[in-house]
C-alpha cells in the first residue's frame, strides 16, 4: 500500500515537472515589438470578403490568432502581425 501511495506521489511530482515541457513550443510570427503590430480589426479585415467568417482575434505570443470559419470548417489562423503573412493554419476536425 505504501508503495502504491509513494508511486502516486512520485507520479504527481513528475507530472508537475513535465507540464511545462509538454506545453507546445510557441510559433514565432514576428520579432517586431507590439507597437508595430496591426490592429485586430485590420487583421480580421484581411480575411473577410474572402469567404472567411472571422469570429475573434487574439494575441498569441508573437502572433495574432484568428478564429475563423470557412466553408463550414473551423480553423485557427496564425499570422505575422506586421505584414499579415499566414504562418500557420490549424483546421479543426
Amino acid at each position, binding site marked *: *500500500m505504501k508503495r502504491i501511495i509513494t508511486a502516486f506521489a512520485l*507520479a504527481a511530482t513528475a507530472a508537475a515537472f513535465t*507540464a511545462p515541457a*509538454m506545453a507546445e513550443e510557441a510559433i514565432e510570427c514576428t520579432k517586431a515589438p507590439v507597437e508595430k503590430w496591426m490592429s485586430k480589426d485590420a487583421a480580421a479585415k484581411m480575411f473577410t470578403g474572402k469567404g472567411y467568417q*472571422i469570429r*475573434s482575434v*487574439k494575441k498569441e505570443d508573437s502572433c495574432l490568432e484568428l478564429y475563423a470559419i470557412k466553408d463550414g470548417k473551423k480553423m485557427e489562423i496564425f499570422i505575422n502581425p506586421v505584414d499579415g503573412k499566414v504562418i500557420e493554419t490549424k483546421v*479543426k476536425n
Partner: protein
Amino acid sequence: MSITASQNQSLSAGGRPATGGRERTVRVWDPLVRIFHWSLVLGIALAWLSSEGWDRTHEITGYIIAGLIGFRLLWGIVGGKYARFAQFVRGPRVTIAYLKDILSGRAKRHLGHNPAGAAMIVALLFSVATTCMTGWMMSWDAFWGAQWLEELHEGAATFILLLVGLHVAGVVHASLSHRENLVRAMFTGRKRL
C-alpha cells in the same frame, strides 16, 4: 456490510488495539467509488498536462471525465450506502458548523464522508462538470472563437486545482486528527469501525 476481524484481536491495556495488531475494519468505499476517484485524479492530471497544444488528447480526456461525472451522479442516487448523496450531503448550517469544528480541532470522525468532505465532493462535481461542459461547447460552431467561453473554461479548471489543494489538505488534516490513513482507505475501501 462485511466485517473482517483479523487473527490478532488482542487489545492492549488501554483498550485500544495493540500496536502491530490489525484493527477491525469495515468496507466503506465500494470498488466503483474507488475506481471513479482515482480515474478522476488521473483524468484531471492528464487534462492539465494536455491543455497546451495536445488538443486531441485533451478533448478525449474531457469526454472521459464527463462520463465519469455522469456515472458518479447516477451512483450517488442508486449506489451503495456510503456512495449515496443522501447519506453524506448536508445543509449549509451543518457544513459551516463542521468547518468551525475543524478549525477548533474538535471535528467528529465520520465513517462515511464528513460534512466538509461532502461539500468538497459537491464543489468538485460542479466545477468539473462546468469545465467539461464549457470545454465541449468550445468545439461547437456557435461558440467558435468565443473568448468568454475559453476564459470560463480556464477559470473553472483553475478552480478545480484550488479545490484539489483544499481537498488534499482536508484529507491530511482529517487523517492526522483521527489517526487513520484516508488515502489508504480510498485504495482499500476499508476503514476502522
